[in-house]
């Protein structure tokens, strides 16, 4: 698998002068992975792929708009490419997608690899990339049944418990915006949280401000979140951000029958509507 990736990367770099391959290399802890940018064919030897390649590299494509780029993607990451093409941020022609059939990632952090799957991988449905130019590995069947037991657990507790739960989670937020910066769907020139006038949130940190920031962030990703789980992985204070994102994912699948990033062409739910649909109204 690693050899295939290296060969494909090398072939592509030899044909595309000035291009760049974005992939994974060994991190400084000697055990996990980190993103690497390879500009010369002779450097492909550092490319790796294993169960610690947790990062979604598709975010980096936004830094290389219009430049020839090859990228190694897992199935979830590949949906980021579709999302960004759908939203006119990338053009498909300039990207060479090395799609990797995903065995599921381990819960890997700097200096330690837990012997359990990464939480997003436990509920993953798609094991073959949604878009690729070359596929590494044999296509795998999709997981048929959706598992939203994590969301259902929160839905199942009382409204007061939910309020308390999220209040506690959001209070921890240090507003470092790691979640935003790592997200492939977050590419505003200026985030609403940074806008001065009108002051939607501003720089102040506090329970209410953190509440609106986290809701605003999640809602801006509604029907757009591709489930790569990066926001949750990078959060330095362990806020279960995917638990919020996945509620929106579930609702938009139920209400709009839509799964973001599965292709680059389908109009997203907020771009369209059905006259006859009835979304739950006040009882």
């Amino acid at each position: 698998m690693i050899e295939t990736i290296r060969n494909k990367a090398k072939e592509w770099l030899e044909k595309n002068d000035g291009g760049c391959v974005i992939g994974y290399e060994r991190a400084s802890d000697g055990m996990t992975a980190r993103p690497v940018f390879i500009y010369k064919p002779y450097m492909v030897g550092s490319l790796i792929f294993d169960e610690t390649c947790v990062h979604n590299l598709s975010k980096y494509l936004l830094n290389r708009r219009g430049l020839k780029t090859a990228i190694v993607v897992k199935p979830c990451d590949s949906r980021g490419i579709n999302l960004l093409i759908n939203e006119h941020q990338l053009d498909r022609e300039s990207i060479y997608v090395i799609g990797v059939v995903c065995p599921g990632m381990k819960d890997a952090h700097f200096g330690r690899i837990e012997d359990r799957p990464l939480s997003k991988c436990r509920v993953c449905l798609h094991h073959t990339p949604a878009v690729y130019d070359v596929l590494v590995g044999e296509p795998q069947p999709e997981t048929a049944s959706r598992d939203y037991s994590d969301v259902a657990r929160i839905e199942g507790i009382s409204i007061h418990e939910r309020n308390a739960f999220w209040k506690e989670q959001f209070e921890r937020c240090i507003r470092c915006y790691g979640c935003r910066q790592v997200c492939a769907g977050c590419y505003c020139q200026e985030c609403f949280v940074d806008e001065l006038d009108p002051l939607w949130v501003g720089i102040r940190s506090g329970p209410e401000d953190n509440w609106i920031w986290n809701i605003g962030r999640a809602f801006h990703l509604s029907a757009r979140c591709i489930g790569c789980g990066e926001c949750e992985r990078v959060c330095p204070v362990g806020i279960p951000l995917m638990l919020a994102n996945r509620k929106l994912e579930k609702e938009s699948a139920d209400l709009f029958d839509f799964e973001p990033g599965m292709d680059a062409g389908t109009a997203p739910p907020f771009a369209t509507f059905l006259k006859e649909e009835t979304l739950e109204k006040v009882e």
Partner: protein
Amino acid sequence: MNRIIVDNNLRSWLKELAEKYTLVAPVTSDGVTLFKHVKGSQVDSLDLQYSNTAVSPKGCFFPLSETMFSIGSDGVNVIAPVSTDREVVIFGIHPCDAAGIALIDRVFLAEPTDTHYKEKRDRTILIGLACNAPSPECFCPSVGGGPANPMYLDILLTQTSAGYIVQATTGKGKELTPAARMEEKDIPLPPPPHVTPVPLEGVSEMMRRNFDSPYWDRVADRCLHCNICSYVCPCCYCFDIRDYMGKDKIDRVRSWESCQSAGFTMIAGGHDPRPTKGARLRQRWYHKLLYFPELFGDIKCTGCGRCVRSCPVNIDIREIITDVQKLNV
């Protein structure tokens, strides 16, 4: 001979402190350890074996957000913020984090003093806990510290099999030590645990020479420009100030900011002197390894390993230091 306090006594002392002081200590919940205000009733459940907290305790003096002052909507009345009337005891702080506070002191306590910082600093007592489980990414001795370094603390506790050895280094610390709860024993200070060193010789000079190296752009390739490294860092102290309209008043609020965020250096008219990812990333390392040493003599890093651990894309200060020393000028 050392003064020893056994675990039971330590906890009853802490409970007593919690009565009189605002007690801050490392608390783990949802798998995340953070310095939090604790009540006496929580003392028994404190875990004293923790490795470094997710975020440094600098927020006790330099909060994530603080209202500096408010102005009444009539535009005349200036309202000073109400500060705590109790003194604060931070318990369980590791020597590296104390060193971080000492580094920020040099900036905020130098004239003109940052009054908001100074007020909190003056009213806080630091009870340290020698670090007995440094992470592989820690390198405090290389930057002049050590896992059991009592400097910058009022009191340092070092764990032994017989209890905690108490070292009070300041007047405040000596005053606070609970004589009745301690006993003198002939137990020596244990040797500090091993920490892998990072060679720092000549790093500032190499930084000086390599400002224009393409190296910075290459590292910045994978940098996400999140603020995580700065926010978890015990000695990063950048902030931003904004005004907030509140009920019948306007608050002037200061909050943490980071040199890594886009727009941090944006100036009126829209010009940004650090417009590229490489320039922003470089700034952080230059501040730590060149500008701060030039001004204050020391490298602005305590070797706590937080940024190494928290960086989502493994930008590792140890690697940067090693790489810089190998750069061809």
